């Protein structure tokens, strides 16, 4: 029992143990809710909700009316859970960053490559996030909604997506890191 608790409190688990937990979560989502895990779709549901409240005529299109109807969907609740799950995980290992120094540019490797400037990190992160969400839309899901959820059902789309993701990820990382690759 003591060993289990001390393992839970570790900052990093074996990827096999953490992966098994995610696999069980994926099974339970299908079994209990007949739903697939995902994250990128929830952002669409939420932005539709905000958009139709702020600029109803702009967001009155086929996509927001029929393809991804706005609202507090199962996926949105899952996304809220993700937020608190990350919080819980960090809390158990005492690595919460709320109000701590360095929380605005949280990664040492990033700082050693790009420097300590916060604006640089925020700019690249912001642009990266826009690209990620748009790409997830084109592909039909993100790492969780397509790669994991599609892969566990053995959908070919998931493996095509994973192949594309690794191919360009490797090239991009090489271009960014160059000599330090």
């Amino acid at each position, binding site marked *: 029992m003591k060993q289990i608790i001390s393992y839970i409190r570790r900052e990093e688990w074996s990827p096999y143990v953490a992966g098994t937990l995610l696999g*069980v979560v994926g099974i339970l989502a299908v079994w209990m*809710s007949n739903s697939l895990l995902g994250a990128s779709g929830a952002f669409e549901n939420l932005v539709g909700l905000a958009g139709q409240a702020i600029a109803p005529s702009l*967001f009155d299109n086929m996509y927001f009316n029929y393809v991804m109807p706005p609202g507090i969907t199962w996926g949105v609740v899952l996304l*809220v859970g*993700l937020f608190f799950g990350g919080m819980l*995980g960090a809390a158990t290992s005492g690595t919460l960053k709320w109000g701590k120094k360095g929380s605005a540019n949280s990664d040492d490797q990033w700082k050693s490559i790009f420097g300590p400037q916060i604006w640089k990190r925020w700019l690249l992160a912001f642009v990266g996030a826009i690209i990620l969400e748009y790409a997830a839309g084109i592909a039909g899901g993100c790492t969780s909604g397509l790669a994991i959820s599609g892969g566990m059902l053995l*959908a070919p789309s998931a493996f095509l997506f994973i192949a594309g993701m690794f191919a360009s990820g*490797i090239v991009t990382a090489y271009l960014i890191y160059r000599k330090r690759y």
Partner: protein
Amino acid sequence: MSTYVIALFLGVAFGFSLNKAGLTKYHKIVNVFRFTDMAVLKFMMTALVVSMSGLYLLRGLGLVTFPAPPATYIAGNIIGGLIFGFGMALSGYCPGTCAAGSGEGKLDYLIPGLLGFFVGAAIYGLTYQQVFPLISNIANEGNVVIPDLWNLSPLLTVLFFAVMSFFLFYLIDRAGLQRKKEI
């Protein structure tokens, strides 16, 4: 109501696993593309092996029916993946890990990250009609799964995937050991 409770519970467990696997850290995600830390790949493949074995077993026992799998439209899946990998190497996160990282209190996840996803979602929703039908019409196979598409035994397909994964884990660890020796 109860379905929302399940979603919340599963979301927390999902975010917890992302945190413990280290996926809420920029360097963990980028280093898998540099072949210096393969934890992300191990984590994803393990999750896939566990969940596909469990789901196909449960379906074999008649305990679950599958929801519609994500659609296969070859060009779109690959192009989307290519753009996605670019964004991932740039930011060091994906939509799920950004939400979990935000919960940890990392401001570079909470503010530019979540904001970027909302902006990206709005741009996608507003340009959907001009972009998506074009791409998804190319080589569209619909909501298929591999065993049905190629007429394979589901059991053997899962087994094949599992064996391939274990072999890959073995190769990764061997390569890692060799590198240590060299240093």
